[in-house]
């Protein structure tokens, strides 16, 4: 895989390039949006690390242009603007993820790898977190390489959670995904399926756990 870093600050770019190299991630560096566009045309990248505060064209503008052109390239926005509204603007413009400076490099690496895994998973249909794997096409689940028998709805919930490991999946979203608009379901239906899936994962010795955020939803995270 090859990552393109677009960052105008020379020191930060240098440190980031060094850190990426040490983590075994091949990367190129562009200082300006214009330069980045040229490089994106000529080479094949697996992800884009984009500073939103570029001197020539705002990173957001570049991102919007890329998305309008139909590029599916995963983008992690690096922003010095921390205000909530500005972060949301970044995500709206088509960033897959964002990090506010100063960020932890391990965090960046993890998000980068998650995005890349998701990319790979989209192609193969495989989702994974810890020792849990799910083939989203066949809906077959595995824990530690052993097959885990789950119902279609349990698999659907597992897919929702595995697509957003470490992030909250709201109950609203789960209901929308599990049941059609016309379908009748009881108010604790999702809770019931989650409970069953949680038990199955526990019994199978999974190293991830489904946490309940009462009143909000669920979250998949590694067992402490």
């Amino acid at each position, binding site marked *: 895989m090859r990552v393109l870093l677009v960052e105008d600050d020379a020191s930060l770019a240098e440190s980031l390039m060094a850190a990426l190299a040490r983590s075994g991630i091949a990367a190129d560096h562009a200082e300006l949006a214009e330069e980045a566009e040229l490089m994106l045309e000529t080479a094949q990248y697996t992800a884009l690390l984009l500073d939103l505060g570029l001197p020539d064209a705002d990173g957001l503008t570049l991102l919007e242009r890329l998305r309008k052109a139909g590029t599916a390239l995963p983008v992690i926005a690096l922003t010095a603007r921390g*205000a909530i509204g500005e972060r949301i603007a970044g995500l709206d413009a088509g960033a897959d993820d964002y990090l506010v400076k*100063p960020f932890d490099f391990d965090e960046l690496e993890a998000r980068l790898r998650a995005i890349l895994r998701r990319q790979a998973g989209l192609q193969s249909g495989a989702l994974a977190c810890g020792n849990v794997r799910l083939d989203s096409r066949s809906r077959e689940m595995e824990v530690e390489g052993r097959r885990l028998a789950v119902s279609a709805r349990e698999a659907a919930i597992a897919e929702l959670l595995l697509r957003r490991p470490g992030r909250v999946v709201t109950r609203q979203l789960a209901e929308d995904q599990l049941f059609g608009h016309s379908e009748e379901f009881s108010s604790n239906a999702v809770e019931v399926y989650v409970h069953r899936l949680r038990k199955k994962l526990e019994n199978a010795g999974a190293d991830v756990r489904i946490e309940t*955020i009462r009143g909000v939803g669920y979250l998949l995270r590694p067992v402490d």
Partner: protein
Amino acid sequence: MRVAKPARLWPHSLIARVVLSQGVLIVLAAIGVWEIGGWQLRHAVVLEQRRVLVEQARQIAQGYRGGDKVDLPPSLELAYDSSYDGRAFVIITVKRGPVAGSRYADGIPWERVPTNTHATSFSIAPFGGISMPFTHSKRQYWVVVTQDESGPGVILHRVIAQSMHGFAVLIVLLLLAFGLFDYILVRSLIGKVAQASDGAAAIGPKNLAARLDEQGLPSEVGPLVHAINDLLDRLEASFTSQSQFVGNVVHELRTPLATLRLQARDVDAAPVRARLEDQVDRISHVITQLRHLALLDSAPQLGEDVRLDDLARDVVVELAPRALDSGHTIALETQTPGATVIGNPTLLSLALINLVANAIDHTPRGTAIRVGVGPRALSVEDDGPGITLHDREHLTRRYWRADRKRSDNAGIGLAIVHRIMELNGGRLEIFTPPEGGAGFSLIFAH
């Protein structure tokens, strides 16, 4: 401690000053007009009486034929034939005393009458009159004409006095009318000034663009209001540039901090590296809060309908991973689904995020955090160690920290929450939940 000011005789209020000085002026003017007017009238009467007496004395002197013989004009003859009004005359010489006189001249104290070379008024109670020298057959005589000053003829004095009373009332009423007019005039002018003051009082960081109305102000106050508007112009410019400056500084600092954070990875000694990273994170947190503080004072208070349940859910979704990572549990309890308030959604989110982040950062592992949604209220409770009463008093002060050694900053966070609620017209309340721990409520006014 405030020291009570001694009572002041001269009031601060302009209207009170005008009324007070007008009152004093009215009293002085009434007394002055009464005294001077009365004196002038009396003086005029005295002069007139003297003129009449001098005229009569001249006629008497002309009518003197020597010896005790006096030829009077018929009008005078009649007047001096009665004792009415104490009217009498006598002609005297210095050596021989009276030589001729009217019928009732006996009472005239001629011995004490002045004998000067010119007509002289005298007043020997109860008589008043004049003594006027004249010569007849080369001899020097004085004709003395008197009038009883207590007699009914002097009724004129009383008439004057009476009319002066009426006059005085008229004067006082007139002066009071002037005073009232002045009061109304000054009041209306002061009213304009008070309007300008109200306008000035309403101007804050949020509406620095507002200016005072310079229309209809008295020209004496106009320059002051104009100067205030000029001051506001400069203040606004400086405020805006300061707010932008803070924003730019924070923005500019983040990139070098990111570099620093990355370079800290090169430090081999793990404890040193961890400390470095902590310090960078702390600086980053402080400058973020700084940016929020600057943003608060310049952010427009958008009057949007904000759904409290959605807002609280978004905040919990954003912070739940952080809460779980630090060993806390977090839950949302929505008592009133669909409840809305009016406010700036970004700022209200920021307020709740600060409260939840404080609960995560300031309570030990295992603490349960509950975010509550009520009608016009959001709350964040925890079952941690709670806040002492002493700390509570300081909690919303900017830059205050419950534990000064701690490398976080609940102080700024709560100050921001406090300020957001202030701007929104609501308030931040700190309470102790029934099960113990700490509780913070955002109470909205509308």
